[in-house]
């Protein structure tokens, strides 16, 4: 594949980062260009249309749908409270009256003469978007949101669960090869974002969540334990909405895999910094990777310089992303033309890679290598 791209995960010591904070529907932007904002500040808000509740009045009143309009007590557009009578038949001499009470509070949106169906719309649902990171308002998207700019250390994980959270960074292990176990977690971890090494046990996650830990960044985690945490199998990697109180970010993959030294060192360097994390992951249709953003105190002077994604070349630093040698970093030594036969019998394009930790050169399929982006 002469022009194959294998974009990798970013581990950037310092970058100018922008984050778009956009409302799901049009609304009001609360800040203006150039404003300095803190992560917790509300930058835009709107109201989602309320939930809708249909109610077949014709069935309840036992009348033809076309006649329902004659029995309405409330009219379209009226505000109604739960229990209010919406429609009522007169009955016979005041007896055998049938009435329909609203099961919800809201507005009577419409009544159909064809189906006899009334639509009750509940009160709008307010939505507020915060800045998520400390920074400056770089751009206002009228009625929709803002773009925040900041100077930050930035790390992408490979998989995460849980949404946006924030806390002070606390490194829990000595080395990137260590395991984060439950006995290391105590009350001092409350409100923090913890950093583990190669692996974290399920017990450790559970204790962290109970203790009130905001987020955990770790090299590896067992896939089967994810089900234990969220209560269901994650069949397709679209995450971020899980009902959990501690966001989990895995930097390398499932199983016990050493956290890349560069990632670990970067996190260690910023211990004590306030850190924003988001576990949202989506492998398909617009890749989203979980992220760790450590805002730096300095002013973000310029816009992000989008690094050009380059192809794999001699000298490119790569990470092996499949067994054997999963997680090992190395350097591309050769990119032979033509296909070569793998142990599996498949023919594939390969690269000769010098594996740093193991100090040996091996032929690996290019598809199993990821470019390791650092600065």
């Amino acid at each position, binding site marked *: 594949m002469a022009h194959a*791209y294998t974009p990798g995960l970013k581990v950037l010591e310092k970058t100018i980062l922008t984050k778009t904070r956009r409302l799901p529907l049009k609304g009001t932007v609360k800040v203006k260009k150039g404003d300095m904002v803190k992560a917790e500040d509300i930058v835009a808000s709107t109201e989602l249309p309320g*939930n809708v509740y249909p109610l077949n009045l014709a069935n309840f009143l036992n009348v033809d749908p076309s006649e329902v309009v004659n029995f309405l007590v409330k009219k379209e557009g009226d505000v109604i409270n739960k229990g209010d009578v919406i429609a009522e038949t007169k009955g016979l001499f005041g007896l055998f009256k049938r009435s329909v009470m609203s099961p919800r509070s809201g507005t009577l949106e419409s009544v159909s003469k064809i189906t006899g169906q009334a639509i009750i719309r509940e009160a709008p649902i307010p939505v507020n978007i915060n800045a998520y990171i400390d920074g400056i308002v770089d751009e206002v998207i009228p009625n929709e949101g803002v773009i925040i700019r900041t100077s930050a250390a930035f790390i992408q994980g490979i998989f995460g669960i849980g949404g946006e959270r924030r806390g002070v960074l606390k490194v829990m292990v000595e080395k990137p090869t260590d395991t984060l176990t439950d006995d290391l977690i105590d009350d001092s971890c409350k409100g923090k974002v913890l950093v583990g090494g190669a692996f974290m046990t399920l017990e450790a996650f559970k204790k962290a969540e109970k203790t009130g830990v905001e987020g955990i960044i770790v090299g590896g985690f067992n896939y089967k334990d994810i089900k234990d945490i969220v209560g269901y199998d994650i069949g397709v990697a679209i995450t971020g909405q899980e009902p959990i109180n501690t966001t989990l970010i895995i930097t390398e993959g499932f199983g016990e895999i050493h956290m890349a030294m560069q990632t670990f060192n970067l996190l260690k360097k910023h211990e004590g910094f306030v850190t924003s994390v988001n576990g949202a992951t989506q492998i398909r249709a617009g890749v989203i990777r979980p992220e760790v953003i450590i805002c730096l105190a300095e002013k973000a002077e310029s816009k992000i310089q989008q690094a050009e994604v380059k192809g794999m070349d001699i000298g490119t630093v790569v990470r092996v992303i499949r067994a054997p040698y999963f997680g090992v970093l190395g350097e591309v030594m050769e990119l032979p033309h033509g296909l070569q036969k793998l142990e599996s019998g498949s023919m594939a394009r390969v690269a000769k890679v010098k594996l740093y930790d193991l100090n040996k050169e091996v032929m690996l399929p290019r598809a199993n290598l990821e470019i390791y982006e650092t600065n």
Partner: protein
Amino acid sequence: MEKETIKPENIISILATDCGSTTTKAILIEKQGDEYRLVTRGEAPTTVEAPFEDVTKGVLNAVKEVEELRGRILLDENKIISPQKDNTGVDIYISTSSAGGGLQMLVAGVVKAMSAESAERAALGAGAIVMDVLASNDGRMPHEKIARIRHLRPDMILLSGGVDGGTISHVVEMAELLRAANPKPRLGANYRLPVIYAGNKNVIPEVEKNLKDVTDLFIVSNLRPVLERENLGPARDKIHELFMEHVMAQAPGYKKLMEMTHAPIMPTPGAVGTIIQVIARNENISVVGVDIGGATTDIFSVFKDPYSGEPVFNRTVSANLGMSYSISNVLAEAKLENILRWVPFEIDETDLRNRIGNKMIRPTTIPQSLDELKIEQAIAREALRLSFIQHKSFAVGLKGVQKERTISDTFDQSSTGETLVNMMDLDLLVGSGGVLSHAPRRHQSARMMIDAFLPEGITQLAVDSIFMMPQLGVLSSVHEKAATEVFVKDCLLHLGTCIAPVGTIKPGKEMVTVKLELPEGKTYHETIPFGEMVLIEAPYVPINAEITPVRGIDVGNGPGNALNTTIYGGLVGIIIDTRGRNPFVLPTNHDMRIKKLQAWSQAVKEFEN
């Protein structure tokens, strides 16, 4: 790009791409003498997603590879040169696409087993992934339906219901629910969601009143104008048209791609369905085709309707059964023990789960070691098996277009409708998709298909050589001669024939006697006991066969009856599978199962030793 119209007979080169969710595949077809042949292929990662977000980058990369391999110029910077002049460029360029999630639809009807099912059939036939089927009688409360519509973000909605002159209120009720939900399209908030109405024509004014101002509403002929007949064509054509105009136009880079192609871009499954129907029609046979991709698995079948004798086409898509993006969902749906039963060695369960999870998050990686390959092929068996179960339960009753039924048939079509898929009648099983087309040995593809589909009696097996059925499908719509010639000569690889006696007896007891007149005057005459797999190597030529099962066992001519027929070998040969059918059971004892799996592998030469 300026597109010149060239007469089909003057076309000497065709470039076709298929933009899959993981890989973009390009093939180059050239006229050699009087016939069209595949000359080379290339591939590159699909670039519909970040950081590239432009599908044409992957297309150009794949074409660049074709250019290098063929040694002639096809590109002028970022343009495909057309028409061909001297040795430069190609006469036509066409493409299919399933990238970015393909075409995702919500369908709605009145009666779940009637108009809603017909609407689902129309959407599936057009190549869509059906996210949900709403119906007045689907058991959900109206507010639950609204919540569901609001939650899903489909690419388009197909609304049907009521025969012409039939129910009005139920159809209007569905339209009212849609209006109240005010659904939003999946890609971008800058356009209104396309809704196709294909129901009772008398309800059109009411549907317009409810939906015209909140959606992009299109009206086509009723897809179920009378109870006894489906009319899926107009709805399906409109889906294709809207797929191009609305969905594709929103996906990153597709506007550019649409300008490059000489024919409308087809959803990949729609194109594969087209070519499967061409095979069934030309050979007058029953066919099951499967395309197992990274995200989804599609199954196509053409079987004769037992009542009318007419061939009936059906397609299903298992949206979350695939080998990369959806691989963890195969684990979730099949359960670990069902995957483990195909793994011919000891493996720790946690380790297996982690490997599957890692493939999900790094979907473009490939198995490097033999054990990793065996694990992926074990998962593929289960993905195929589950997809086929779904297909069998859907391929019932009505056919794709213009099926006449009696009223009594109509009422029992789905609830009691038997599947049209009759494995004993199946003539040809065709496999396509990465794990089947690119298996290191064709024997592995044959084994995966046999284990997953459990063919009965006599069944020919084939694979799509390099996974080009999608491109040939779209080509058949613009140049059927070229599509058919390449399909027969370069695409379809005949693996051989599977002889699978149906029934079960005690292990070790004699099950079937097979007598074959092989080429070069050779013969094969053996009696095979129950529980074995046997491979007889033979080329793709007609071979006279006399197959005699023991009492109670059926090979296609009734229990205990001998069958004299002509069968074909192929790249693998003739596989006799006496492991039993109905039921097919693997040993439950762990050690015995591994021993048996290894023995069968060795018998059919699945792996190089």
